[in-house]
């Protein structure tokens, strides 16, 4: 057992897989010599050398194109897109090339690759370095989308993503890089498409992802002392989606709240709400409520950013209001 930061867990997860599989290679901007702009990849160059851990030019299309070409010819590349907002300059490679090519070729090609990226707000970086983009990826057939919320999950889901034979968009929550958690010694390997029930309650179910998970947990503690006993589910993976766990946990309490960092429209919570309404509508005891960032680009000022992203207080108040009405 050791205490590890979310940031350290990234290098740990990648190293674990690079040690066991020679076909795993890693490329991106400033990831090798500098150890990553968020220091998430420190030590990998030293351990695995410059042939397997390669710095690239500022060429996001080249980075992801190279990852795709390498994956279709037998490697298991990990590519970094420094900030998730930058997906916009290479989105063609992600959605038109990587995501569609297996289907278009009638299964002739596979793309065992992972694209890691620093996702979301909380660091006061302003609108172009703070967006939560998981929904961009979730809506594309052919992409798996993973968002860990703890150091342990970073390692286990990273390992699962690298071993997976499909392309995985692996979103690291920038606001969580400094957070710590317990991690066992030895290899850790998790499963994609498995949500985690972090707390079991009887009154309401809070469903959260990434950076919103610790906030939902804190909110659940406050709500418990106010007499509202909540289940908290960490979705962990949007595709594949563990709907069974979500349906079961919503059924059990009869109330569903999603906590999403994304701007309002087309957030993953909307999809979950639709599944729940379709399949267990008669188990609900009240409306489904989505707690999200408003539909705005994220502002830079700390005071404004804090108003925008769902806070513990906002979660508590929203749940209380809805449960008491």
């Amino acid at each position: 057992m050791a205490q590890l930061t979310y940031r350290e867990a990234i290098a740990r997860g990648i190293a674990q897989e690079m040690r066991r599989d020679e076909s795993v290679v890693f490329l991106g901007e400033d990831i090798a010599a500098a150890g990553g702009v968020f220091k998430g990849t420190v030590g990998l160059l030293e351990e695995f050398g410059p042939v397997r851990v390669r710095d690239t030019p500022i060429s996001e299309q080249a980075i992801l194109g190279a990852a795709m070409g390498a994956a279709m010819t037998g490697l298991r590349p990990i590519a970094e897109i420094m900030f998730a907002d930058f997906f916009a300059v290479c989105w063609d490679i992600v959605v038109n090339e990587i995501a569609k090519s297996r289907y278009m070729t009638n299964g002739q090609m596979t793309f065992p690759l992972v694209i890691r990226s620093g996702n979301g707000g909380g660091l006061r970086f302003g609108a172009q370095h703070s967006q939560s983009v998981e929904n961009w990826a979730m809506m594309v057939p052919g992409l798996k989308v993973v968002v860990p919320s703890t150091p342990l999950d970073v390692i286990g889901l990273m390992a699962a993503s690298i071993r997976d034979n499909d392309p995985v968009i692996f979103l690291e929550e920038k606001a969580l890089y400094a957070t710590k958690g317990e991690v066992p010694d030895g290899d850790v390997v998790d499963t994609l498409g498995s949500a985690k029930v972090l707390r079991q309650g009887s009154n309401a179910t809070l469903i959260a992802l990434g950076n919103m998970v610790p906030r939902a947990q804190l909110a659940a503690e406050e709500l418990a002392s106010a007499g509202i006993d909540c289940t908290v589910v960490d979705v962990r993976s949007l595709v594949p989606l563990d709907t069974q766990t979500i349906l079961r946990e919503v059924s059990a309490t009869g109330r569903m709240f999603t906590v999403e960092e994304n701007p309002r429209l087309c957030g993953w919570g909307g999809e979950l709400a639709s599944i729940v309404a379709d399949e267990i509508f008669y188990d609900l005891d009240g409306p489904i409520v989505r707690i999200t960032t408003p539909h705005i680009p994220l502002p830079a000022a700390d005071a404004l950013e804090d108003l925008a992203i769902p806070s513990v207080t906002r979660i508590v108040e929203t749940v209380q209001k809805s449960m008491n009405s």
Partner: protein
Amino acid sequence: MSLDVVAPLLLDDKLDLYRSQFALRQFEKRAYDLFLENYVKGTSHLSIGQEAIAAGVARAMRPDDWTFATYRGHAHTLARGVPMAPVFAELMGRANGLMAGKGGSMHLTSVEHGVMGSYAIIGAHLPIACGAAWSAQYRGTDQVAVCFFGDGSTNIGAFHEALNFAAIWKLPVIFFCENNLWMEYTRTTEVTAVANPAADRASAYGLESIIVDGNDADEVYAVTAACVARARAGEGPSMIEAKTYRHGGHSRADPGKYRPDEEVAEWLAKDPIPRYHQRLLAEGASEAQLVEIERAVNEAVDVATEEAKAGAVPGEDLLMKDVWANGGAEWRN
């Protein structure tokens, strides 16, 4: 560019190269007819007039090398040895198609023949070809990737990203620009800062500027073979610009009327196939040999057309297949 390393083609090789070019031509003509007869739906982009390139390049490659083509990729796919029938069938949306009808004319792929896809987003496949080349370099095989693209594709960002990337990593990749002078309906020089859209950019990436007559299969072969040898020897990427012309329009039934008549006439006179025919006669082939090649090709095109037409319409079983590596399309439990 020294061609010393290149083994010269013998008469038999050249007869084979003639067969290949003639087959590409006849295939494309038939594809056009099938389009007019509504067997081929959607769109298709023919390479009539540009066959010397696909044929010449394929001749310079090993079966385990890789090609990356564009939406104008029928010829490039066939030239690597993919049989005609599944390609016709793919164009027709049949279950016996190369990808069972799931890709269509613009996405022909046959991994088993090293045809690593045909890409319909301009420029996207240049970085992808870099990735395949990187994988060959990493695994220490001496495979080479060749990436075809048009003159118009030299103005998109991915082109420039890929060239720099290939140069700094010394990747075994050959960027092959088929300069047929036109984008879709715009003359490329009217929207390009330099006269030779690929070759004039090569020096920006530390590459030699190479221009070749794209209507001469022997020349295409020789220059490509030299670049392939260089790539196999670990000496990095090359870019070739071949001057050529598409006889028809950009796609489907586009008559290409935006092009001046004299220009079309000038290039029809440089048609690579009659030219090669004449060359072979001058180099000792007999007319009877060439006629026999043509007859056999025409017969093969007929047989392949019928085989494709006989294919079933793809069924629902294919619809939800192969989104994921496990063969399925499930996104939830």
